[in-house]
């Protein structure tokens, strides 16, 4: 391979001709190594994330009272670990989208079949007894002959309803207040606006646990201790700053022109807000709604501190007491309650995933 001498580049002429094939081979080698390292890393991090959830579900559907059996877990792991590795290998080796889908479908089919053979015979829904038997604690204990001392559990659907009520009411208030407040912060100039924005962030930085004693006293004096509305108010107060901040970012991204155009088109300020501005920030509203709802759904500290009567239990408290009462006896029931507790937030996340992804885009401008 000859190199033509270019008058200006004197160094190029003096050096030996470059070996293009060797350079290409080296680049290929580097690319391969990088890919191998990347996929090894992906396999290594995805396993510890997937396994606990998988085991939770497996235990919920397979554990039996009084039997400490871990063989089924090892068998299920023998299905999942190769499946995860096979999934990433397929992703790494697939040459086209079509191959990728065929590969994933094959891996999934084999995994499902193996699961049905190895784990299938052990599956049952007996652990979900709490869904239809309010006094399940006594039933579970009686299986191993120890009946006395069981906690009186409320109906699980009652706790479920309380959780929905807390999360739903909190979401409704936060969404309403945040979308109005953020609009004002985004569009209007008023004294103390920038310091207010700064304090919003500081408020969010506050560890909420530090306030739990004063909050307890406050609720006690107001008379809202051991009421759902008291907890709702506290949760709203802690969630609002962040929600307002996120919403402000979304409003900032809506151009003034559109609003001015609506005003000259005959809309009042309020009509312009409702019919032109709000639809533009719909994704932001959905995002804060989902986050606030899930925050309320998984709330534990405040409900544990501020709610006392068992008719006021939420799912997290129910879960806590189930663990407290039957864990040593039957961890299958505990896992089943966990699965039951998990399902609504999982459904919500999956339904709203598209909008949550956009929050990071709209929100960073804040």
């Amino acid at each position, binding site marked *: 391979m000859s190199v033509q001498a270019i008058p200006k580049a004197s160094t190029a002429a003096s050096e030996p001709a470059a070996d293009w094939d060797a350079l290409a081979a080296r680049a290929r080698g580097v690319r391969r190594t990088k890919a191998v390292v990347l996929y090894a890393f992906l396999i290594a991090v995805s396993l510890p994330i997937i396994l606990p959830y998988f085991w939770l579900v497996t235990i919920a559907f397979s554990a039996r009272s009084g039997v400490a059996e871990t063989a089924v877990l090892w068998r299920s792991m023998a299905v999942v670990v190769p499946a995860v590795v096979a999934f990433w290998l397929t992703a790494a080796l697939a040459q086209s989208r079509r191959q990728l889908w065929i590969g994933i479908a094959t891996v999934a089919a084999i995994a499902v079949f193996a699961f049905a053979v190895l784990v299938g015979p052990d599956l049952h829904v007996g652990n979900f007894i709490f869904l239809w038997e309010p006094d399940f604690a006594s039933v579970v204990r009686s299986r191993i002959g120890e009946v006395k001392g069981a906690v009186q559990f409320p109906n699980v659907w009652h706790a479920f309803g309380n959780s929905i009520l807390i999360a739903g009411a909190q979401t409704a208030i936060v969404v309403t207040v945040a979308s109005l407040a953020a609009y004002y912060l985004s569009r209007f100039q008023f004294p103390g606006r920038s310091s207010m924005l700064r304090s919003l962030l500081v408020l969010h930085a506050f560890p909420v646990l530090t306030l739990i004693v004063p909050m307890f006293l406050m609720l006690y004096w107001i008379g809202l201790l051991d009421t759902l509305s008291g907890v709702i108010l506290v949760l709203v107060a802690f969630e609002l700053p962040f929600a307002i901040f996120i919403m402000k970012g979304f409003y900032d991204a809506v151009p003034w022109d559109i609003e001015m155009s609506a*005003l*000259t088109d*005959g809309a009042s300020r309020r009509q312009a807000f409702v019919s*032109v501005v709000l639809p533009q920030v719909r994704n932001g509203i959905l995002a804060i709604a989902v986050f606030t709802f899930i925050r309320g759904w998984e709330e534990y500290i405040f409900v544990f501190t501020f709610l006392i009567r068992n008719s006021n239990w939420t799912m997290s408290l129910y879960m806590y007491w189930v663990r407290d009462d039957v864990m040593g006896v039957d961890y299958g029931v505990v896992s089943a309650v966990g699965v039951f507790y998990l399902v609504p937030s999982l459904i919500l996340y999956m339904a709203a995933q598209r909008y949550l992804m956009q929050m990071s885009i709209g929100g960073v401008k804040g």
Partner: protein
Amino acid sequence: MAKIEFRNVVKRFGAIEVIPEMNLVIEDGEFVALLGPSGCGKSTSLFMLAGIYLPSGGELLFDGHVVNEVEARDRNVGIVFQSYALYPHMSVRDNILFPLRFKKTPRDEAFARVKAAADLVRVAELLERRPSELSGGQQQRVALARALVKEPQLLLLDEPLSNLDASLRLSMRTEIKSLHEQLGVTTVLVTHDQIEATTMADRIICMRAGRIEQVGTPDDLYLRPSSLFVAGFIGSPPINLIAGEAEAGTVTVNGARFPLEGGASGSVTVGLRPEHLRFGETGFAGRIAQIEPMGREILYVVETGMGAVRVLEQGSSAGHSTGEQVMIGFLPENSLVFETARQKLIAGAHVRAPE
């Protein structure tokens, strides 16, 4: 249709006075352009007309009635924004229908008017689409339809062509002008582009730093600019401005002597438009430094004793090359003489090319 009047209108934002004092009458059915560089207060004036900004002082009149405090929605003004400001979550039909929603127009009539407006700007086949699915030119038309559907008494256009590509700009220019002729609605165009202003408007209001520099027809501004600023702003390629001293019927510029007609003395600036300069046997001497072919015409940059001078020649009379020595002549009536200190045109003063 409305006659618009600014009477001593002032606009301040906090301590900043954007428009010190504005007096202007726009006749019923007129097409005027507010022309000026960015930050000269032309958009502020437009938003005051629309009712989005309230004047800080003075009176704004529509047909003789003070409208200072009338809300934007009650002014019946159509506006087309630079960004078009279409409502992205609505179909084109709903966009055009939007102004009628608040007027409680009966449904059938509203749909008929949307159809008519869409036909007028030729977007009838796009009614079901979303704004994001339209090209820039189509969005522009939809914005026009939305502004026109409410049969406004005043149509405001805020830099309507600046986001379009060159050829589309040309056709939209013609289209907007013919729309105005067809509908006869009083129209105010805001632009920083002198070509847009001179091609579309009946009258141009040239603004600078919140003040009206000159009001006149495109010809007035081109042929008789009242100040150096207007002379420099109107015309492309820009006018040649040559500073000199006037004394006893002669303007002396760096040794070259231009015979002066009309009275002027002291420091003056001579304005010569590139398209009025001709290469010939007489005039002032120079050397061609650069040649810029512009299609039909060729722009020559000529180094002379008084600095670089731009000369625009018809392409057919080409045949000059870089480095060539040339003589530049012009007709006296095409020359402009400004008083340098006040930056104002000296009426009736002209210079002749040196013999």
